């Protein structure tokens, strides 16, 4: 991602790496797992161990020209092929092309009457033969603990396991050995990590408040620095992707370029030029104050500039948004048709916060937008505690700034009249616009809009009346129905009028 990664990859003092080809994993391990050495991946049932193994082998065969052997104690070739077919991986074809060998080992304790000393040379012979048959550089041994259910003699198994690890190193193959974790999830069930000392990766699948998140952590990587944090990962139709959020640093370049908001009066309030490009803008307000409409105006303006806008809605469906925007004179249809406006609706509770972030990451990669609208940010926050929210939001803003994307959040505040943002995100926001219900001298309730802060520019300190009509969004002086004298530059009035005609 950044330059520092590359320099680390080519550091001669480090282990040589073997890239897994799994999005993000190679970044947190500075280039992949140790080459020609075995790596242990363990985790509880259903956390994606087998998929990691398969991805490693398939990516090796298809991207890095390294044939691989997949030794499975659990699933046979047919079952495996079927399981990964949904990820658009054609295993049988790769097997046919002699890029992959799948070895299924059938173990049945009832078949194994032990009548004395033995070893597992048969396993070695099989593996060796499979490796030689295609010149494999990668080996995955899936669910090694199955061995312990197939044989009685623990002592023999342990010494054979040790020998297997040594043998794999001698064969100079990059190996992944997967194993189930113990009840508490801290160690493997049979203490297999004792034998694998180079690289140990833990996969975790936990459910907090009914929402499940998969996480990955590199526990050990001998002779190398690595991210020791937990990283969320996602299994979807494209396979596995790990999001190395913490690799992001505060390095985003500053810019002074200003862009229009789409509401001429609001531009005037922001010293006449609008907001700063790739900054973060928050529009907060009580229910029904027009936050979404303002965000819609921002979206229209982005598209009018010929840039792509990604609109993530957590409350309304795309159709609903389009229809509602039409009622205030904003037609999204042409921009959607042109592909400039992408509206995605998801339920906030559909997955955890980490996953939302990961989803955002993927969407950004896919659409490369210049503006991302998250509407509303606050509905995401039903999901986690304050600490988590704060960290996610920081990372979200970092992610957007790194990609030079303008972030526009809407935020619902409780109607008690506090303008304190719910989660103390104020310090992360560059431009903060608040809309709230106000009462004027004539005792009319109306929407009052003002700017709490806007970094790097002078801005109006007045409260203006926000008017939503079928002609669009207008800002008027609070006290009068007549057109407002906008400060600081009344001269802009002509411009505003022309906007009105639009």
């Amino acid at each position, binding site marked *: 991602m950044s330059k520092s990664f590359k320099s680390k990859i080519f550091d001669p003092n480090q282990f040589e790496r073997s890239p897994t080809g799994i999005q993000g994993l190679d970044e947190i391990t500075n280039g992949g797992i140790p080459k020609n050495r075995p790596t242990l991946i363990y985790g509880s049932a259903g956390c994606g161990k087998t998929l990691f193994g398969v991805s490693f082998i398939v990516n090796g065969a298809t991207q890095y020209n390294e044939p691989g052997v997949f030794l499975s104690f659990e699933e046979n070739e047919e079952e495996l092929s079927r399981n990964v077919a949904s990820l658009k991986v054609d295993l049988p074809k790769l097997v046919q092309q002699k890029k992959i060998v799948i070895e299924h080992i059938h173990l049945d304790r009832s078949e194994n*009457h*032990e*009548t*004395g000393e*033995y070893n*597992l040379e*048969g396993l*070695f012979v099989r593996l060796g033969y499979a490796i030689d048959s295609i010149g494999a550089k990668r080996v995955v041994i899936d669910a090694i603990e199955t061995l312990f259910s197939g044989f009685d003699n623990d002592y023999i198994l342990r010494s054979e396991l040790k020998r297997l690890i040594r043998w794999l190193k001698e064969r100079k193959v990059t190996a992944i050995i997967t194993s189930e974790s113990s009840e508490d999830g801290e160690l493997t069930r049979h203490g297999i990590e004792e034998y694998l000392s180079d690289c140990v990766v833990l996969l975790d699948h936990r459910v907090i408040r009914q929402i499940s998140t998969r996480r990955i952590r590199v526990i050990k990587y001998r002779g190398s620095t690595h991210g020791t944090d937990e990283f969320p990962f996602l299994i979807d139709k494209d396979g596995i992707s790990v999001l190395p959020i913490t690799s992001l640093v505060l390095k985003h370049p500053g810019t002074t370029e200003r862009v229009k908001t789409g509401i001429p009066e609001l531009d005037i309030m922001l010293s006449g030029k609008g907001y700063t490009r790739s900054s973060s803008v928050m529009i907060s307000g009580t229910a029904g104050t027009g936050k979404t409409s303002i965000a819609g105006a921002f979206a229209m303006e982005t598209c009018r500039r010929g840039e792509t806008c990604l609109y993530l809605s957590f409350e309304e469906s795309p159709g609903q948004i389009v229809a509602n925007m039409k009622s205030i004179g904003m037609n999204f249809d042409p921009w959607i048709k042109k592909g400039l406006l992408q509206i995605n609706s998801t339920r906030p509770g559909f997955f955890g916060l980490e996953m939302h972030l990961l989803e955002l990451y993927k969407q950004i990669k896919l659409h490369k937008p210049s503006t991302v609208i998250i509407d509303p940010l606050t509905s995401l926050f039903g999901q986690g505690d304050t600490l988590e929210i704060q960290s996610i939001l920081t990372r979200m803003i970092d992610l957007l700034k790194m990609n030079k994307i303008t972030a526009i959040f809407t935020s619902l505040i409780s109607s008690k009249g506090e303008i304190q943002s719910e989660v103390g995100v104020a310090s992360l926001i560059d431009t903060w616009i608040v809309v709230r219900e106000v009462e004027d001298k004539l005792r009319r309730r109306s929407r009052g809009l003002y700017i709490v802060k806007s970094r790097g520019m002078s801005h109006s300190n007045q409260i203006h009346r926000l008017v939503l009509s079928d002609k669009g969004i207008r800002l008027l002086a609070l006290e009068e129905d007549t057109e407002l004298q906008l400060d600081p530059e009344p001269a802009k009035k002509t411009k505003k009028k022309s906007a009105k005609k639009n």
Partner: protein
Amino acid sequence: MKAKKKVITKKPTSKKVAKATKKKVNKVVKKEPMTELCLYIAGNTARSRVAFENLKSVCGKYLKGRYKIEVIDLLTNPRLAKEDQILAIPTLVRKLPLPIKKMIGDLSDSEKLLVGLNIKKLGSK
């Protein structure tokens, strides 16, 4: 080493049929059902020699003339490790009479070997 190697291949003709993947040792067929055994080894190791000796002595004692032993060296036939699902070495497979039975280890526990082969002890006959 060399002397011992003979032990495994001592049975008539086996050494000559180097090309054949399986070395067969035929004994006289009697009216009692024939027992067909297959011993999987990986190279000529001390343990495989022990296993073969143990097997021979038990068969000689209880199945006189009614058994066949086939010794398969996985190092020369690595393919068979997959086909016959062999993991542990040595493994003894009783192919006949059915059902197929698998025993692992050097067969030094002759009690278990007899149970595995379904052979009644001499005394109980």
